[in-house]
């Protein structure tokens, strides 16, 4: 017996657990198959770029916390580095190492969140997510003991970092780094032999390397397609050129590869942090800078590798203490460029895990 049905419109979100925030999908379904897909964003739009034009460069650092709120440290770092390159202010050596340590801790926390929610989307409801949260909690505790905040850290400063970590930070960090290999092996043993997980993620949402490059993808979404592009290697900032680490890439470009790239990156981040802890020199954690910085009229486009990809800051100065134009290049928004192409023709459950594997943060998409 055959049945036929008219195509119908299905609305998902903005309040829906599998959209990872206030993200709305409007899909036209023909039975199980998606015929058209439209994404609707902007529910969290706070007009940061306009507000930034009324604030000094230092006052704008907290905005970067609230853009990518799952990776506040790398957002802070991106803006601090952009202004430093613009004004010629330098950070002390110890601050550069602290920046690397905190940016990599943030990467581990963010990837744990990304992979945990992806597993949740794939049907392993809640338990694996809470395994991932176990390490994330310890990292957020480290943030809290250093700068007082867990999510909106506001830690990086133009010319250094805001606080020196307290004495008990270092043993706690060491303990976490020592147990991380065991933890990542535990995830692998729980998930990677699981037939359901493999069926849901393998050969789903395939992005070819050509499409990934042409569609301006960056971060794990680009590397999952086999393109070894990482700004930490390509244009090393802070002191990344002093560490030995690899850039993991995928082979097929499917959801599974993007998941595995994040798993491998966690291991690489642990490697970087261990080297940084060994090499970190004593000294001040912050250089003195004028209360209101007035960069020379000009512009800069400066970017760093956030857990989601290339977070860029395009700043235009007119010589006043506030930027004339402040643009945040949002990797989470731009990684969604190919979502419609990937979604149309697939089934709805596949589109949901594809969206999960791109790892969006709505605070950064909407800004």
């Amino acid at each position, binding site marked *: 017996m055959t049945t036929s049905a008219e195509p119908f419109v299905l609305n998902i979100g903005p309040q829906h657990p599998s959209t990872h925030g206030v993200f709305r999908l409007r899909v036209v379904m023909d039975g199980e198959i998606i015929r058209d897909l439209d994404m609707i964003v*902007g529910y969290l739009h706070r007009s940061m770029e*306009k507000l930034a034009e009324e604030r000094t460069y230092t006052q704008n650092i907290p905005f970067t916390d609230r853009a990518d709120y799952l990776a506040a440290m790398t957002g802070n770092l991106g803006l601090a580095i952009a202004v430093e390159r613009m004004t010629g202010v330098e950070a002390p050596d110890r601050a550069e190492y602290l920046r690397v340590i905190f940016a990599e801790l943030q990467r581990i926390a963010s990837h744990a969140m990304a992979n945990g929610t992806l597993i949740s989307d794939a049907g392993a409801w809640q338990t694996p997510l809470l395994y991932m949260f176990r390490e994330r909690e310890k990292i957020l505790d480290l943030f809290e003991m250093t700068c007082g905040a867990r999510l909106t850290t506001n830690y990086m400063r133009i010319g250094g970092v805001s606080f020196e970590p307290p004495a008990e930070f270092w043993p706690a960090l060491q303990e976490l780094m020592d147990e991380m290999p065991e933890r990542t092996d535990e995830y692998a043993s729980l998930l990677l032999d699981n037939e359901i997980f493999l069926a849901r993620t393998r050969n789903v949402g395939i992005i070819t390397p050509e499409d990934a490059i042409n569609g301006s993808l960056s971060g794990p979404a680009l590397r999952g397609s086999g393109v070894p592009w990482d700004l930490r290697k390509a244009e090393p900032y802070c002191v990344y050129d002093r560490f030995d680490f690899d850039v993991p890439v995928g082979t097929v470009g499917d959801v599974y590869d993007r998941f595995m790239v994040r798993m491998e990156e966690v291991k690489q981040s642990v490697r970087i942090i261990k080297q940084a802890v060994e090499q970190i020199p004593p000294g001040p954690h912050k250089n003195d800078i*004028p*209360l209101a910085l007035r960069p020379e009229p000009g512009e800069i486009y400066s970017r760093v590798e956030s857990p989601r990809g290339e977070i*860029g800051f395009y700043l235009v100065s007119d010589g006043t*203490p506030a930027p004339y*134009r402040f643009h945040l290049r949002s990797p989470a928004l731009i990684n969604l*460029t190919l979502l419609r192409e990937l979604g149309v023709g697939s089934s709805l459950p596949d589109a949901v895990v594809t969206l999960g594997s791109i790892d969006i943060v709505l605070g950064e998409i909407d800004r």
Partner: protein
Amino acid sequence: MVAQALGAALPGVVTASNDEWVEVAPDRVEDALRWLHDSDQFDAAQLSNLTAVDRYDRFEVVYHLQSLDLNHQIALKAIVTDHEDPVLPSAYPVYKGALLQEREVFDLMGIRFANHPDLRRILLWEGFPGHPLRKDWMGMVGGHTSGLRGFPFENKEAPDRIMNAGNLVEHGESLSAQTRRNVEGAQPGQGH
């Protein structure tokens, strides 16, 4: 170097250049992007960033192109002088990555991109009055212009006063020492 090669290959495209960027004629943007994308010498495979700046009488649309193989960056600028109804060719036929970035520029800056397949507002809703990142946006009433002329907490007599000098509390203890003491007194895992 980019300006010379681009000007030689496509006469009339380059209108100005300096060390940092190449200015191209607004109606030839797509040609310039396609040539740089296809060129072996520059290999601009990825449109890394696309945004716009309002200069009151004109708009600057900025393209940051990235070569992944050669690891270099090229900045292109197109100056649109019509401030009332700015129109520019879309970069989408060359770079799919322009899809959402051009929608964002259209939404917040009001620049239309010809040949864009799906030019709608993205962050604001249909019917929103005006384009807020424009410097003369209607929200700025009462003669207030955007920007910050002086920092309110700055001491006019000592404009070079450094940031850390004011970071002291009355009994001479720095804020970071205070934080450290608070942290030492706290039990691990507190503050959830």
